[in-house]
């Protein structure tokens, strides 16, 4: 741990301060996604090409929502000190996350044939999914680091925020997709 001067005058424990910091960051990042969503309407209006793979879009959405469920279970398990369940749920979340990344890869492969980045819809599709999948990748990485840290411990102890923070970030990424999915796939 860091040898920082102990903070003697705070009225807030470190967990609360960390939670506040994370929430502020989520507010800030949400602002970025609002900018992304507004540019979709600006560049390609509300039209969605017929070639878009609706089955794939729906599957990706279901997959990510399921992964949020397992992430939630991991957090609950951490709060209840159920280490083995927590680790399994973290692994399951990461697994679904990786599957999602491959799904987006396939989405791009199809999109390159129908609407490459040099078209209006392609521009917004690649930008929105690209920024989002980068967030997913950071989420997987964060979960991976947390998993690495908690893989051998008996009780959660000081690592509660590590799990909680990673899971909250995962939920945020998930909610962002809940807005991106209708914006890209369902607008008519």
């Amino acid at each position, binding site marked *: 741990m860091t040898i920082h*001067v102990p903070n*003697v005058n705070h009225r807030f424990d470190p967990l609360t301060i960390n939670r*506040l*910091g994370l929430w502020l960051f989520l507010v800030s990042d949400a602002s*970025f996604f609002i900018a992304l969503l507004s540019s979709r309407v600006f560049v390609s209006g509300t039209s969605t090409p017929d070639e878009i793979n609706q089955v794939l879009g729906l599957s990706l959405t279901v997959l990510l929502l399921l992964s949020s469920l397992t992430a939630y279970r991991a957090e609950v398990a951490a709060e209840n000190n159920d280490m083995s369940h927590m680790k399994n749920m973290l692994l399951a979340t990461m697994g679904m996350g990786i599957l999602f990344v491959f799904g987006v890869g396939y989405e791009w492969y199809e999109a390159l044939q129908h609407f490459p980045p040099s078209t209006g819809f392609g521009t917004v599709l690649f930008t929105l999914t690209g920024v989002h999948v980068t967030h997913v990748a950071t989420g997987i990485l964060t979960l991976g680091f947390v998993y690495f840290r908690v893989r051998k411990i008996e009780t959660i102890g000081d690592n509660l925020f590590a799990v909680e923070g990673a899971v909250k970030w995962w939920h945020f990424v998930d909610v962002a997709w809940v807005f991106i999915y209708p914006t890209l796939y369902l607008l008519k």
Partner: protein
Amino acid sequence: MPLVRGVIYAAIGFAIGGSISLGITNMTGEDYKEPMIVLGYVFAIIGWLMGVGMWKIWGREWFGKSTVNDPTGGWERYLKFNTDHKVIGIQYLATLAVVFLLAGLLAMGLRAELADSGQNVFTKNTYNTTMSLHGIMMIAVAVAAVMGGFSNYVLPLIIGAEDVAFPRINALSFWVVPPVVVLLLLTPLFGGFDFGWTAYPPLATQAPIGGLLFELAFLTFGISSILGGLNFIATIITQRAPGMTWGRMPIFAWSVLAASIISLTATQWVAYGMLMIIFERVFNMVFFSPPGGNALLYEHIFWFYSHPAVYIMILPAFGAELEIISHFARKPIFAYRWVVRAFAAIVALSFVVWAHHLFTSGMGEELAVPFMVLTELISIPTGIIFLSALGTVWRSKLRLKVPLLFALAVVFNFAIGGLTGIFLADVATDIALQDTYFVVAHFHYTIMGGEMFAIFAAGYYWFPKITGRMYNETLGRIHFALMFILYNITFLVMFIPGTVGMNRRVAEYPPEFEAMNLIVSIAAFGLGLSFLPWIYNMLNSWIRGPKAPDNPWGAKTLEWQTSSPPPLENFKVMPTVTGDPYGYGDESVVHARFGKSSPSSQAAPAEGD
């Protein structure tokens, strides 16, 4: 040496990122240069941060290893990833002072070119690059000198905290700034960028590689700004000393909170603007070009940040100005609560005024009048802040020290800046004045006359606290007199060619504007020279100045109740806030008591108070 290590790691990072990119472009057959620079830069930044010390203090923790953080030491503590907010404040101020002087030299170059109507100093392209560099470097100074420099140094002290809420994020927010400066200074070697600091497409998407470096620099700077804002909000919410209620919080802390909210949420938009340009350049996307794309998208997204950004610059400047006026007038801040409400109103309104930059852009005409009204509404809260400054001065016995002189100059200059702004917010007059020197003069009156004068006020005011030494009052007065007079000549005269239609951002202009421009140029050179006494004063006083007492101004706020410069933990004995910070003239009002209920073991006698 952390700096050397940082550079080496950055080079390794660039090599790794660049090779990955080269591998990909080799397969797809695209042009290799710009993708290589972008990906290489991303890896280089990570390498740089890890090299300057983030790895030791932070990165090891991610892999379950122990971390070491020692923010103490001699001068070398300023040259590494340091979590002490006072060190970070000085790092920001020193870096930005250099950037400010460089950008000032560029401005003198521009004025040399504009002294007569022909072309003499620059070619058209180098003129545009110089103009653009001057703009973006000064914008960086304006955003970060007060939000990064003074806020970092003063905010935790003024609210009685030991440090900011997230010291490591704070260090991170500084250490991405040096790459920004390096990138900007490199741009002339890569063809420069000729689109001003606003980077409108299609100029920006067609500019040489220098333009790409500019976009990467702006993006990186945004990260610094977002993380800084986040940190200050969390600090103000969680780190105030016991007893410091919202109503007892010094006005400077309020202004930083207001600016931080804007910086946290709006900066994302300019980051997206830069990202769009980079995507259009690297992936051939069509945000701004047909089919589908539209350059107006950029202008909306850019100004959605960049108009609020001027409030990031000016709000903490107002906070510092009111702070200084109150302490030197020995009177409480007039209408303190109304000023806080005005800050809140400005934050809210700042998000709904951006399109006044687009009156002549071809956006929907039905938007013009609503945005005109909203923009003019913002003069009401600004006026309240103004009245507060005047009300504090009213019937007081002013102690005319250098910080107060600069703070009063803010009132004078910003009055001119604010009044000329009305003509630019008004659609009918803006259509004629848009893109002329009237805009340049107006902007310099608000940001240089308003904010930079406040920064100099803050610099003189907190100099004894930061360095532990006193500056030379006479040299300070000479600096003030020269800067105030020459500044006003430069920019007052500049309004005149603007009103008769002289365009900005041109190296050549019609000869009938020559006389006015010659006056502006001569005054501008004088203005540039007026910083020489400041440089000498700052450096000489820091090294050889007389030792400053802990509280040379007799101010009541907390930063003056500790030693100069403060110890690592800021207060040897933690303060408990018991009253108003501006209770001058009423001896029964005590802002803070020391030594009660302090769990600190190495209890020392209370400083000051």
